[in-house]
Protein backbone atom coordinates (compact mmCIF):
# COMPACT_ATOMS: atom_id res chain seq x y z
CA UNK A 1 0.00 0.00 0.00
CA UNK A 2 1.23 3.43 -0.90
CA UNK A 3 1.22 5.69 2.11
CA UNK A 4 1.06 9.42 2.39
CA UNK A 5 4.13 9.58 4.60
CA UNK A 6 3.32 13.02 5.95
CA UNK A 7 0.18 11.78 7.70
CA UNK A 8 0.10 9.21 10.49
CA UNK A 9 0.40 5.78 8.99
CA UNK A 10 -1.65 4.03 11.62
CA UNK A 11 -4.58 6.22 10.63
CA UNK A 12 -4.23 5.22 6.98
CA UNK A 13 -4.18 1.52 7.81
CA UNK A 14 -7.24 1.92 10.06
CA UNK A 15 -9.04 3.55 7.14
CA UNK A 16 -7.92 0.82 4.74
CA UNK A 17 -9.32 -1.87 7.00
CA UNK A 18 -12.59 0.00 7.47
CA UNK A 19 -12.83 0.27 3.71
CA UNK A 20 -12.46 -3.48 3.39
CA UNK A 21 -15.30 -3.94 5.83
CA UNK A 22 -17.42 -1.37 4.00
CA UNK A 23 -16.84 -3.01 0.64
CA UNK A 24 -17.53 -6.46 1.99
CA UNK A 25 -14.00 -7.80 1.46
CA UNK A 26 -13.90 -8.51 5.19
CA UNK A 27 -17.01 -9.61 7.05
CA UNK A 28 -18.10 -9.05 10.65
CA UNK A 29 -16.70 -11.85 12.77
CA UNK A 30 -13.74 -12.50 10.45
CA UNK A 31 -10.37 -13.01 12.02
CA UNK A 32 -7.91 -10.23 11.30
CA UNK A 33 -4.23 -11.00 10.70
CA UNK A 34 -1.89 -11.10 13.67
CA UNK A 35 0.00 -7.91 14.48
CA UNK A 36 3.11 -9.33 12.91
CA UNK A 37 1.31 -10.44 9.74
CA UNK A 38 -0.43 -7.10 9.48
CA UNK A 39 2.93 -5.34 9.79
CA UNK A 40 4.44 -7.47 7.06
CA UNK A 41 1.52 -7.23 4.66
CA UNK A 42 1.27 -3.45 4.93
CA UNK A 43 5.02 -3.10 5.36
CA UNK A 44 4.72 -1.09 8.55
CA UNK A 45 6.34 -1.15 11.94
CA UNK A 46 4.85 -3.81 14.24
CA UNK A 47 4.21 -1.16 16.89
CA UNK A 48 2.18 0.76 14.37
CA UNK A 49 0.25 -2.42 13.60
CA UNK A 50 -0.50 -2.83 17.29
CA UNK A 51 -1.72 0.74 17.40
CA UNK A 52 -4.01 0.11 14.44
CA UNK A 53 -5.75 -2.65 16.34
CA UNK A 54 -5.91 -0.56 19.49
CA UNK A 55 -7.67 2.20 17.58
CA UNK A 56 -10.03 -0.24 15.84
CA UNK A 57 -10.89 -1.67 19.22
CA UNK A 58 -11.44 1.75 20.77
CA UNK A 59 -13.72 2.61 17.87
CA UNK A 60 -15.61 -0.64 18.39
CA UNK A 61 -14.78 -1.95 14.96
CA UNK A 62 -12.62 -4.82 16.15
CA UNK A 63 -12.17 -6.77 19.32
CA UNK A 64 -9.29 -8.77 20.76
CA UNK A 65 -10.15 -12.19 22.11
CA UNK A 66 -7.64 -13.40 24.67
CA UNK A 67 -5.23 -15.93 23.22
CA UNK A 68 -7.02 -16.02 19.90
CA UNK A 69 -6.25 -12.77 18.14
CA UNK A 70 -8.14 -9.81 16.82
CA UNK A 71 -11.51 -10.17 15.15
CA UNK A 72 -13.86 -7.86 13.35
CA UNK A 73 -16.77 -7.17 15.69
CA UNK A 74 -19.60 -9.53 14.92
CA UNK A 75 -22.13 -6.80 14.38
CA UNK A 76 -24.49 -7.12 11.39
CA UNK A 77 -24.78 -3.32 11.29
CA UNK A 78 -21.04 -2.91 11.03
CA UNK A 79 -20.84 -2.92 7.25
CA UNK A 80 -23.45 -0.20 6.97
CA UNK A 81 -21.77 1.80 9.72
CA UNK A 82 -18.48 1.59 7.85
CA UNK A 83 -20.11 2.49 4.55
CA UNK A 84 -21.62 5.55 6.16
CA UNK A 85 -18.28 6.48 7.73
CA UNK A 86 -16.47 6.14 4.39
CA UNK A 87 -19.18 8.09 2.62
CA UNK A 88 -19.03 10.86 5.20
CA UNK A 89 -15.29 10.95 4.95
CA UNK A 90 -15.18 11.19 1.13
CA UNK A 91 -18.02 13.70 1.05
CA UNK A 92 -16.45 15.90 3.69
CA UNK A 93 -13.22 15.84 1.73
CA UNK A 94 -15.00 16.66 -1.52
CA UNK A 95 -16.84 19.56 0.04
CA UNK A 96 -13.66 20.82 1.67
CA UNK A 97 -11.79 20.77 -1.63
CA UNK A 98 -14.62 22.36 -3.58
CA UNK A 99 -15.17 25.07 -0.99
CA UNK A 100 -11.46 25.69 -1.07
CA UNK A 101 -11.87 26.48 -4.78
CA UNK A 102 -14.67 28.86 -4.00
CA UNK A 103 -17.77 26.87 -4.89
CA UNK A 104 -20.78 27.51 -2.68
CA UNK A 105 -23.46 25.06 -1.60
CA UNK A 106 -25.82 25.70 -4.50
CA UNK A 107 -23.13 25.24 -7.13
CA UNK A 108 -22.03 22.05 -5.37
CA UNK A 109 -25.52 20.58 -5.44
CA UNK A 110 -25.96 21.59 -9.08
CA UNK A 111 -22.76 19.81 -10.11
CA UNK A 112 -23.69 16.74 -8.09
CA UNK A 113 -27.13 16.69 -9.71
CA UNK A 114 -25.53 16.84 -13.16
CA UNK A 115 -23.32 13.89 -12.33
CA UNK A 116 -26.21 11.93 -10.80
CA UNK A 117 -28.50 12.49 -13.80
CA UNK A 118 -29.05 9.17 -15.70
CA UNK A 119 -28.67 11.06 -18.98
CA UNK A 120 -25.45 12.44 -17.62
CA UNK A 121 -24.22 8.89 -17.00
CA UNK A 122 -22.31 9.08 -20.24
CA UNK A 123 -20.61 12.26 -19.01
CA UNK A 124 -19.43 10.38 -15.94
CA UNK A 125 -18.22 7.48 -18.01
CA UNK A 126 -16.38 9.87 -20.27
CA UNK A 127 -14.90 11.47 -17.20
CA UNK A 128 -13.81 8.05 -15.92
CA UNK A 129 -12.33 7.12 -19.27
CA UNK A 130 -10.46 10.43 -19.40
CA UNK A 131 -9.12 9.78 -15.90
CA UNK A 132 -7.88 6.40 -16.99
CA UNK A 133 -6.06 7.70 -20.06
CA UNK A 134 -4.63 10.59 -18.07
CA UNK A 135 -3.27 8.14 -15.49
CA UNK B 1 39.05 -22.08 20.08
CA UNK B 2 38.01 -25.18 18.19
CA UNK B 3 36.14 -23.08 15.66
CA UNK B 4 39.09 -20.73 15.24
CA UNK B 5 41.44 -23.66 14.71
CA UNK B 6 39.08 -25.22 12.20
CA UNK B 7 39.25 -22.16 9.99
CA UNK B 8 42.96 -21.52 10.49
CA UNK B 9 43.60 -25.03 9.20
CA UNK B 10 41.21 -24.45 6.33
CA UNK B 11 43.11 -21.33 5.36
CA UNK B 12 46.54 -22.99 5.52
CA UNK B 13 45.91 -26.54 4.42
CA UNK B 14 46.62 -26.15 0.71
CA UNK B 15 50.23 -25.08 1.14
CA UNK B 16 50.94 -27.74 3.72
CA UNK B 17 49.39 -30.53 1.72
CA UNK B 18 51.39 -29.50 -1.33
CA UNK B 19 54.62 -29.63 0.69
CA UNK B 20 53.76 -33.06 2.07
CA UNK B 21 52.81 -34.40 -1.34
CA UNK B 22 56.04 -33.12 -2.89
CA UNK B 23 57.95 -34.69 0.01
CA UNK B 24 56.13 -37.98 -0.56
CA UNK B 25 57.06 -37.87 -4.24
CA UNK B 26 60.66 -37.20 -3.29
CA UNK B 27 60.64 -40.07 -0.86
CA UNK B 28 59.07 -42.31 -3.44
CA UNK B 29 61.79 -41.45 -5.94
CA UNK B 30 64.47 -42.06 -3.32
CA UNK B 31 63.11 -45.46 -2.33
CA UNK B 32 62.64 -46.46 -5.93
CA UNK B 33 66.21 -45.40 -6.63
CA UNK B 34 67.53 -47.43 -3.74
CA UNK B 35 65.68 -50.53 -4.84
CA UNK B 36 66.62 -50.22 -8.50
CA UNK B 37 70.10 -48.84 -7.80
CA UNK B 38 69.23 -45.86 -10.02
CA UNK B 39 71.51 -42.96 -9.12
CA UNK B 40 69.45 -40.25 -10.75
CA UNK B 41 66.32 -41.26 -8.90
CA UNK B 42 68.20 -41.39 -5.60
CA UNK B 43 69.71 -38.00 -6.22
CA UNK B 44 66.51 -36.34 -7.40
CA UNK B 45 64.63 -37.83 -4.49
CA UNK B 46 67.11 -36.52 -1.95
CA UNK B 47 67.18 -33.08 -3.45
CA UNK B 48 63.40 -32.86 -3.54
CA UNK B 49 63.19 -34.05 0.06
CA UNK B 50 65.78 -31.58 1.27
CA UNK B 51 64.19 -28.68 -0.52
CA UNK B 52 60.74 -29.63 0.68
CA UNK B 53 61.92 -29.86 4.27
CA UNK B 54 63.68 -26.52 4.16
CA UNK B 55 60.87 -24.83 2.28
CA UNK B 56 58.29 -26.34 4.59
CA UNK B 57 59.83 -24.93 7.69
CA UNK B 58 60.13 -21.50 6.19
CA UNK B 59 56.83 -21.34 4.37
CA UNK B 60 54.57 -22.32 7.25
CA UNK B 61 55.40 -19.31 9.45
CA UNK B 62 55.69 -17.08 6.41
CA UNK B 63 52.18 -18.00 5.32
CA UNK B 64 50.90 -17.36 8.82
CA UNK B 65 52.44 -13.91 8.92
CA UNK B 66 51.15 -13.10 5.46
CA UNK B 67 47.69 -14.33 6.36
CA UNK B 68 47.55 -12.16 9.46
CA UNK B 69 48.71 -9.18 7.46
CA UNK B 70 45.95 -9.63 4.91
CA UNK B 71 43.38 -10.22 7.61
CA UNK B 72 44.33 -7.08 9.47
CA UNK B 73 44.49 -4.80 6.47
CA UNK B 74 41.50 -5.81 4.37
CA UNK B 75 37.80 -6.10 5.12
CA UNK B 76 38.31 -9.81 5.74
CA UNK B 77 39.29 -8.65 9.22
CA UNK B 78 35.57 -8.45 9.94
CA UNK B 79 35.38 -12.23 9.76
CA UNK B 80 37.55 -12.50 12.85
CA UNK B 81 36.63 -9.35 14.69
CA UNK B 82 32.87 -9.68 14.53
CA UNK B 83 33.06 -13.04 16.28
CA UNK B 84 32.90 -13.13 20.08
CA UNK B 85 36.48 -14.36 20.41
CA UNK B 86 39.26 -12.64 22.31
CA UNK B 87 42.45 -11.50 20.55
CA UNK B 88 44.31 -14.02 22.72
CA UNK B 89 42.24 -16.86 21.28
CA UNK B 90 42.63 -15.53 17.76
CA UNK B 91 46.41 -15.21 17.96
CA UNK B 92 46.66 -18.39 19.99
CA UNK B 93 44.84 -20.32 17.29
CA UNK B 94 47.19 -18.97 14.65
CA UNK B 95 50.32 -19.92 16.58
CA UNK B 96 48.89 -23.32 17.47
CA UNK B 97 48.18 -23.99 13.80
CA UNK B 98 51.80 -23.21 12.95
CA UNK B 99 53.02 -25.45 15.76
CA UNK B 100 50.83 -28.31 14.58
CA UNK B 101 51.77 -28.05 10.93
CA UNK B 102 55.48 -27.91 11.84
CA UNK B 103 55.00 -30.95 14.07
CA UNK B 104 53.28 -32.83 11.26
CA UNK B 105 56.13 -31.96 8.93
CA UNK B 106 58.63 -32.92 11.63
CA UNK B 107 57.05 -36.31 12.05
CA UNK B 108 56.74 -36.97 8.34
CA UNK B 109 60.25 -35.85 7.48
CA UNK B 110 61.53 -37.58 10.59
CA UNK B 111 60.05 -40.88 9.50
CA UNK B 112 61.33 -40.41 5.97
CA UNK B 113 64.84 -39.65 7.21
CA UNK B 114 64.91 -42.66 9.54
CA UNK B 115 63.77 -44.93 6.73
CA UNK B 116 66.26 -43.42 4.31
CA UNK B 117 69.09 -43.60 6.83
CA UNK B 118 68.35 -47.28 7.47
CA UNK B 119 68.28 -47.96 3.74
CA UNK B 120 71.55 -46.13 3.18
CA UNK B 121 73.19 -47.75 6.18
CA UNK B 122 72.44 -51.21 4.89
CA UNK B 123 73.33 -50.39 1.32
CA UNK B 124 76.53 -48.53 2.02
CA UNK B 125 77.92 -50.88 4.62
CA UNK B 126 79.04 -47.83 6.63
CA UNK B 127 80.49 -48.46 10.07
CA UNK B 128 79.01 -47.35 13.32
CA UNK B 129 82.09 -45.27 13.92
CA UNK B 130 81.46 -43.27 10.77
CA UNK B 131 77.86 -42.77 11.77
CA UNK B 132 78.87 -41.54 15.23
CA UNK B 133 81.23 -39.06 13.66
CA UNK B 134 78.50 -37.82 11.37
CA UNK B 135 76.06 -37.52 14.24
CA UNK B 136 78.39 -35.58 16.49
CA UNK B 137 79.17 -33.22 13.65
CA UNK B 138 75.60 -31.98 13.83
CA UNK B 139 75.59 -31.74 17.59
CA UNK B 140 74.42 -35.18 18.65
CA UNK B 141 76.22 -37.45 21.14
CA UNK B 142 75.99 -41.22 21.23
CA UNK B 143 73.36 -43.67 20.06
CA UNK B 144 71.59 -44.50 23.28
CA UNK B 145 67.91 -43.71 23.52
CA UNK B 146 68.45 -40.90 26.01
CA UNK B 147 71.12 -39.38 23.80
CA UNK B 148 68.84 -39.48 20.81
CA UNK B 149 65.93 -38.07 22.78
CA UNK B 150 68.09 -35.22 24.05
CA UNK B 151 69.30 -34.61 20.54
CA UNK B 152 65.76 -34.53 19.20
CA UNK B 153 64.67 -32.22 22.00
CA UNK B 154 67.48 -29.83 21.21
CA UNK B 155 66.64 -29.75 17.51
CA UNK B 156 62.93 -29.30 18.18
CA UNK B 157 63.53 -26.74 20.90
CA UNK B 158 65.88 -24.69 18.77
CA UNK B 159 63.70 -24.80 15.69
CA UNK B 160 60.42 -24.10 17.42
CA UNK B 161 62.02 -21.57 19.71
CA UNK B 162 63.45 -19.63 16.85
CA UNK B 163 60.47 -19.87 14.52
CA UNK B 164 57.84 -19.09 17.13
CA UNK B 165 59.64 -16.19 18.72
CA UNK B 166 60.30 -14.66 15.32
CA UNK B 167 56.72 -15.23 14.22
CA UNK B 168 55.20 -13.83 17.39
CA UNK B 169 57.42 -10.78 17.17
CA UNK B 170 56.33 -10.35 13.59
CA UNK B 171 52.66 -10.68 14.58
CA UNK B 172 53.24 -7.92 17.09
CA UNK B 173 54.93 -5.77 14.46
CA UNK B 174 52.00 -6.28 12.08
CA UNK B 175 49.49 -5.34 14.74
CA UNK B 176 51.44 -2.21 15.62
CA UNK B 177 51.49 -1.33 11.93
CA UNK B 178 47.79 -1.91 11.52
CA UNK B 179 46.93 0.11 14.61
CA UNK B 180 49.13 3.05 13.75
CA UNK B 181 48.64 3.24 10.02
CA UNK B 182 44.99 2.12 9.91
CA UNK B 183 45.01 1.40 6.21
CA UNK B 184 47.39 4.03 5.00
CA UNK B 185 50.14 3.16 2.57
CA UNK B 186 53.45 1.59 3.40
CA UNK B 187 52.11 -1.06 5.72
CA UNK B 188 54.46 -3.83 4.74
CA UNK B 189 57.57 -1.70 5.08
CA UNK B 190 56.42 -0.33 8.41
CA UNK B 191 55.83 -3.76 9.91
CA UNK B 192 59.13 -5.02 8.51
CA UNK B 193 60.89 -2.07 10.07
CA UNK B 194 59.39 -2.68 13.47
CA UNK B 195 60.18 -6.35 13.19
CA UNK B 196 63.80 -5.73 12.26
CA UNK B 197 64.23 -3.43 15.26
CA UNK B 198 62.72 -6.05 17.57
CA UNK B 199 64.76 -8.81 16.02
CA UNK B 200 68.07 -7.03 16.39
CA UNK B 201 67.22 -6.13 19.96
CA UNK B 202 66.27 -9.70 20.77
CA UNK B 203 69.32 -11.26 19.17
CA UNK B 204 71.72 -8.94 20.93
CA UNK B 205 70.07 -9.48 24.31
CA UNK B 206 70.01 -13.24 23.86
CA UNK B 207 73.59 -13.25 22.64
CA UNK B 208 74.80 -11.30 25.63
CA UNK B 209 72.90 -13.46 28.11
CA UNK B 210 73.97 -16.80 26.69
CA UNK B 211 77.57 -15.71 26.45
CA UNK B 212 77.54 -14.91 30.15
CA UNK B 213 76.34 -18.40 31.04
CA UNK B 214 78.44 -21.63 31.15
CA UNK B 215 78.21 -23.74 28.01
CA UNK B 216 76.27 -26.60 29.56
CA UNK B 217 73.37 -24.30 30.29
CA UNK B 218 73.49 -22.22 27.15
CA UNK B 219 70.89 -24.23 25.28
CA UNK B 220 68.38 -24.15 28.15
CA UNK B 221 68.89 -20.43 28.65
CA UNK B 222 68.37 -19.76 24.96
CA UNK B 223 65.21 -21.86 25.03
CA UNK B 224 63.91 -19.87 28.01
CA UNK B 225 64.62 -16.60 26.27
CA UNK B 226 62.75 -17.78 23.19
CA UNK B 227 59.82 -18.81 25.35
CA UNK B 228 59.87 -15.47 27.16
CA UNK B 229 59.92 -13.68 23.82
CA UNK B 230 56.91 -15.63 22.58
CA UNK B 231 54.95 -14.96 25.76
CA UNK B 232 55.90 -11.28 25.90
CA UNK B 233 54.90 -10.52 22.34
CA UNK B 234 51.77 -12.64 22.63
CA UNK B 235 50.49 -10.52 25.51
CA UNK B 236 51.61 -7.25 23.95
CA UNK B 237 50.03 -8.14 20.62
CA UNK B 238 46.71 -9.31 22.02
CA UNK B 239 46.42 -6.36 24.37
CA UNK B 240 47.06 -3.94 21.52
CA UNK B 241 44.50 -5.75 19.38
CA UNK B 242 41.89 -5.54 22.07
CA UNK B 243 42.38 -1.93 23.14
CA UNK B 244 43.60 0.05 20.22
CA UNK B 245 43.13 -1.76 16.95
CA UNK B 246 40.43 -0.51 14.61
CA UNK B 247 39.73 -2.38 11.40
Amino acid at each position, binding site marked *: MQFDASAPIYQQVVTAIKKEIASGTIHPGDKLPSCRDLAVSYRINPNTAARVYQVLEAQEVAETRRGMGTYVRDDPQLKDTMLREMADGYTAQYIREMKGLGFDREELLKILAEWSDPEEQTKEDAGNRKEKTDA | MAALLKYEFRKTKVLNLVILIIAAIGEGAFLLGSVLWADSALLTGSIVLTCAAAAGFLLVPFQSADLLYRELNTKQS*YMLFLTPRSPKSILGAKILTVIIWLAVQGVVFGIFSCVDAAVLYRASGATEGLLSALLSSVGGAGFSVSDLVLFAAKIIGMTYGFILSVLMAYFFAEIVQSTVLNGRKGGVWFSLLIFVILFIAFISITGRVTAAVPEAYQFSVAACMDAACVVLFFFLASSLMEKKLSV
Partner: protein
Amino acid sequence: MLETKNLVKKFGSKTAVDDISFTIGPGKIYLLLGPNGSGKTTWMKIAATLTKPTSGNVYWDGKPVGIESRKKISYMPTESYFYNWMRVADVGTYYSDFFEDFDARKFADMLAKLDLAPDARVRDLSSGMNAKLRLAAAMSRYASVYLLDEPLNGIDLVARDQVLDTVIASMTPDAAIVLSSHLVEEVESIASTAVFIRDGKILEIRDTEELRDTDGQSLADRYRLLMR
Protein backbone atom coordinates in the same frame (compact mmCIF):
# COMPACT_ATOMS: atom_id res chain seq x y z
CA MET C 1 20.09 -1.18 26.27
CA LEU C 2 22.70 0.21 23.88
CA GLU C 3 23.85 3.51 25.24
CA THR C 4 26.16 5.90 23.48
CA LYS C 5 27.82 8.43 25.79
CA ASN C 6 29.83 11.39 24.56
CA LEU C 7 31.26 9.39 21.73
CA VAL C 8 34.02 11.00 19.72
CA LYS C 9 35.93 9.43 16.83
CA LYS C 10 38.64 11.23 14.93
CA PHE C 11 40.54 9.96 11.94
CA GLY C 12 43.59 12.17 11.94
CA SER C 13 42.27 15.70 11.63
CA LYS C 14 38.79 14.62 10.52
CA THR C 15 36.13 14.23 13.20
CA ALA C 16 33.73 11.51 12.08
CA VAL C 17 31.70 11.40 15.27
CA ASP C 18 31.49 14.56 17.30
CA ASP C 19 30.36 13.97 20.88
CA ILE C 20 27.11 12.10 20.38
CA SER C 21 24.94 10.59 23.08
CA PHE C 22 21.74 8.62 22.65
CA THR C 23 20.11 5.36 23.65
CA ILE C 24 18.80 2.49 21.59
CA GLY C 25 15.92 0.76 23.34
CA PRO C 26 14.20 -2.57 22.70
CA GLY C 27 11.12 -3.13 20.60
CA LYS C 28 11.85 -0.39 18.09
CA ILE C 29 13.14 0.06 14.59
CA TYR C 30 15.50 3.00 14.36
CA LEU C 31 16.43 4.76 11.17
CA LEU C 32 19.76 6.57 11.00
CA LEU C 33 19.38 9.29 8.43
CA GLY C 34 22.13 11.54 7.20
CA PRO C 35 24.29 12.37 4.21
CA ASN C 36 27.42 10.45 3.26
CA GLY C 37 30.18 10.89 5.77
CA SER C 38 27.84 11.99 8.52
CA GLY C 39 29.08 9.36 10.95
CA LYS C 40 26.44 6.65 10.60
CA THR C 41 28.83 3.90 9.56
CA THR C 42 31.46 4.97 12.06
CA TRP C 43 28.96 4.80 14.90
CA MET C 44 27.83 1.35 13.81
CA LYS C 45 31.37 0.08 13.55
CA ILE C 46 32.15 1.34 17.03
CA ALA C 47 29.01 -0.31 18.40
CA ALA C 48 30.06 -3.49 16.59
CA THR C 49 33.56 -3.16 18.20
CA LEU C 50 35.34 -2.98 14.87
CA THR C 51 36.52 0.56 15.44
CA LYS C 52 37.76 1.91 18.75
CA PRO C 53 36.56 5.33 19.90
CA THR C 54 38.82 8.33 20.38
CA SER C 55 36.92 9.22 23.54
CA GLY C 56 33.58 8.32 25.07
CA ASN C 57 32.08 4.94 24.35
CA VAL C 58 29.10 2.79 23.51
CA TYR C 59 27.76 0.68 26.36
CA TRP C 60 25.90 -2.58 26.13
CA ASP C 61 24.08 -3.58 29.31
CA GLY C 62 26.09 -1.00 31.21
CA LYS C 63 29.49 -2.27 30.05
CA PRO C 64 31.65 -0.93 27.21
CA VAL C 65 31.10 -2.90 24.01
CA GLY C 66 33.53 -5.78 23.62
CA ILE C 67 33.56 -9.53 23.30
CA GLU C 68 30.36 -10.02 25.30
CA SER C 69 28.40 -7.48 23.29
CA ARG C 70 29.42 -9.20 20.05
CA LYS C 71 27.34 -12.15 21.16
CA LYS C 72 24.25 -9.98 21.27
CA ILE C 73 24.80 -7.47 18.50
CA SER C 74 24.54 -8.49 14.86
CA TYR C 75 26.19 -6.16 12.38
CA MET C 76 25.72 -6.03 8.64
CA PRO C 77 28.53 -4.00 7.07
CA THR C 78 28.26 -2.21 3.74
CA GLU C 79 31.46 -3.85 2.55
CA SER C 80 32.00 -7.33 1.24
CA TYR C 81 34.00 -9.23 3.85
CA PHE C 82 33.65 -12.96 3.46
CA TYR C 83 36.68 -15.14 2.77
CA ASN C 84 37.15 -15.49 -0.98
CA TRP C 85 37.43 -19.24 -0.86
CA MET C 86 34.00 -19.60 0.71
CA ARG C 87 30.78 -20.64 -0.89
CA VAL C 88 27.44 -19.22 0.20
CA ALA C 89 26.72 -22.25 2.38
CA ASP C 90 30.13 -21.93 4.04
CA VAL C 91 29.14 -18.51 5.31
CA GLY C 92 26.24 -20.15 7.12
CA THR C 93 28.52 -22.80 8.56
CA TYR C 94 30.97 -20.15 9.74
CA TYR C 95 28.26 -18.21 11.50
CA SER C 96 26.92 -21.41 13.07
CA ASP C 97 30.38 -22.23 14.34
CA PHE C 98 30.91 -18.87 15.98
CA PHE C 99 27.48 -17.63 17.03
CA GLU C 100 25.25 -19.57 19.36
CA ASP C 101 22.21 -17.58 18.30
CA PHE C 102 22.56 -18.38 14.59
CA ASP C 103 19.64 -20.23 13.03
CA ALA C 104 20.80 -22.34 10.09
CA ARG C 105 17.25 -23.10 9.00
CA LYS C 106 16.35 -19.41 8.90
CA PHE C 107 19.51 -18.77 6.88
CA ALA C 108 18.57 -21.45 4.37
CA ASP C 109 15.05 -20.01 4.07
CA MET C 110 16.41 -16.54 3.48
CA LEU C 111 18.81 -17.78 0.82
CA ALA C 112 15.91 -19.38 -1.00
CA LYS C 113 13.78 -16.25 -0.74
CA LEU C 114 16.58 -14.00 -1.92
CA ASP C 115 17.49 -16.38 -4.71
CA LEU C 116 21.02 -17.19 -3.57
CA ALA C 117 22.42 -20.59 -4.51
CA PRO C 118 24.13 -22.25 -1.53
CA ASP C 119 26.93 -23.60 -3.68
CA ALA C 120 27.73 -20.32 -5.41
CA ARG C 121 31.21 -19.01 -4.76
CA VAL C 122 31.37 -15.79 -2.79
CA ARG C 123 33.91 -14.32 -5.19
CA ASP C 124 31.52 -14.87 -8.10
CA LEU C 125 28.64 -12.95 -6.51
CA SER C 126 27.60 -9.60 -7.88
CA SER C 127 27.61 -6.72 -5.41
CA GLY C 128 23.83 -6.98 -5.06
CA MET C 129 23.98 -10.68 -4.33
CA ASN C 130 26.79 -10.14 -1.87
CA ALA C 131 24.61 -7.58 -0.11
CA LYS C 132 21.79 -10.11 0.14
CA LEU C 133 24.20 -12.67 1.59
CA ARG C 134 25.44 -10.19 4.18
CA LEU C 135 21.89 -9.43 5.16
CA ALA C 136 20.92 -13.11 5.39
CA ALA C 137 23.90 -13.81 7.62
CA ALA C 138 23.16 -10.88 9.94
CA MET C 139 19.42 -11.47 10.17
CA SER C 140 19.65 -15.22 10.78
CA ARG C 141 20.97 -14.55 14.25
CA TYR C 142 18.64 -14.06 17.16
CA ALA C 143 20.42 -10.97 18.37
CA SER C 144 19.29 -8.24 20.73
CA VAL C 145 20.43 -5.47 18.45
CA TYR C 146 20.70 -5.56 14.69
CA LEU C 147 22.84 -2.92 13.04
CA LEU C 148 22.17 -2.85 9.32
CA ASP C 149 24.33 -0.48 7.32
CA GLU C 150 22.56 0.43 4.07
CA PRO C 151 20.76 -2.92 3.74
CA LEU C 152 18.95 -1.85 0.57
CA ASN C 153 22.03 -0.69 -1.32
CA GLY C 154 22.56 -2.46 -4.60
CA ILE C 155 19.41 -4.52 -4.14
CA ASP C 156 16.71 -4.62 -6.80
CA LEU C 157 13.16 -3.45 -6.16
CA VAL C 158 11.57 -6.82 -5.57
CA ALA C 159 14.33 -7.99 -3.28
CA ARG C 160 14.05 -4.73 -1.32
CA ASP C 161 10.51 -5.67 -0.38
CA GLN C 162 11.79 -9.01 0.86
CA VAL C 163 14.51 -7.30 2.85
CA LEU C 164 12.01 -4.99 4.52
CA ASP C 165 9.66 -7.88 5.21
CA THR C 166 12.49 -9.77 6.89
CA VAL C 167 13.37 -6.73 8.97
CA ILE C 168 9.76 -6.29 10.11
CA ALA C 169 9.33 -9.98 10.85
CA SER C 170 12.54 -10.01 12.91
CA MET C 171 11.34 -7.38 15.29
CA THR C 172 10.44 -8.57 18.76
CA PRO C 173 9.71 -6.59 21.91
CA ASP C 174 13.18 -7.47 23.22
CA ALA C 175 15.18 -6.64 20.14
CA ALA C 176 16.11 -3.38 18.47
CA ILE C 177 16.90 -2.86 14.83
CA VAL C 178 18.98 0.07 13.64
CA LEU C 179 19.03 0.74 9.90
CA SER C 180 20.92 3.36 8.06
CA SER C 181 19.64 4.18 4.62
CA HIS C 182 19.65 6.80 1.94
CA LEU C 183 16.34 5.54 0.57
CA VAL C 184 14.27 7.48 3.09
CA GLU C 185 10.98 7.13 1.26
CA GLU C 186 11.22 3.37 0.95
CA VAL C 187 11.98 2.66 4.56
CA GLU C 188 10.02 5.32 6.35
CA SER C 189 6.87 3.29 6.87
CA ILE C 190 8.71 0.72 8.99
CA ALA C 191 10.64 3.04 11.27
CA SER C 192 9.56 3.79 14.83
CA THR C 193 12.23 6.38 15.50
CA ALA C 194 14.33 8.53 13.20
CA VAL C 195 17.80 9.72 14.20
CA PHE C 196 18.96 12.58 12.02
CA ILE C 197 22.72 12.87 11.93
CA ARG C 198 25.04 15.24 10.08
CA ASP C 199 28.74 16.02 10.34
CA GLY C 200 29.08 13.61 13.22
CA LYS C 201 26.41 15.32 15.30
CA ILE C 202 22.88 14.25 16.08
CA LEU C 203 20.46 16.92 14.91
CA GLU C 204 17.27 15.36 16.14
CA ILE C 205 15.64 12.17 17.35
CA ARG C 206 11.93 11.87 16.52
CA ASP C 207 9.20 9.34 16.88
CA THR C 208 8.02 8.93 13.30
CA GLU C 209 4.26 8.80 13.87
CA GLU C 210 4.51 11.76 16.24
CA LEU C 211 6.30 13.71 13.51
CA ARG C 212 3.46 12.95 11.13
CA ASP C 213 0.74 13.63 13.68
CA THR C 214 2.13 16.84 15.16
CA ASP C 215 4.05 18.41 12.30
CA GLY C 216 2.37 16.77 9.34
CA GLN C 217 5.79 15.92 7.92
CA SER C 218 7.14 12.74 6.44
CA LEU C 219 10.69 11.67 7.27
CA ALA C 220 11.69 12.74 3.79
CA ASP C 221 10.23 16.20 4.40
CA ARG C 222 11.98 16.46 7.75
CA TYR C 223 15.25 15.26 6.26
CA ARG C 224 15.14 17.92 3.58
CA LEU C 225 14.39 20.55 6.19
CA LEU C 226 17.23 19.59 8.48
CA MET C 227 19.87 18.79 5.90
CA ARG C 228 19.54 21.75 3.58
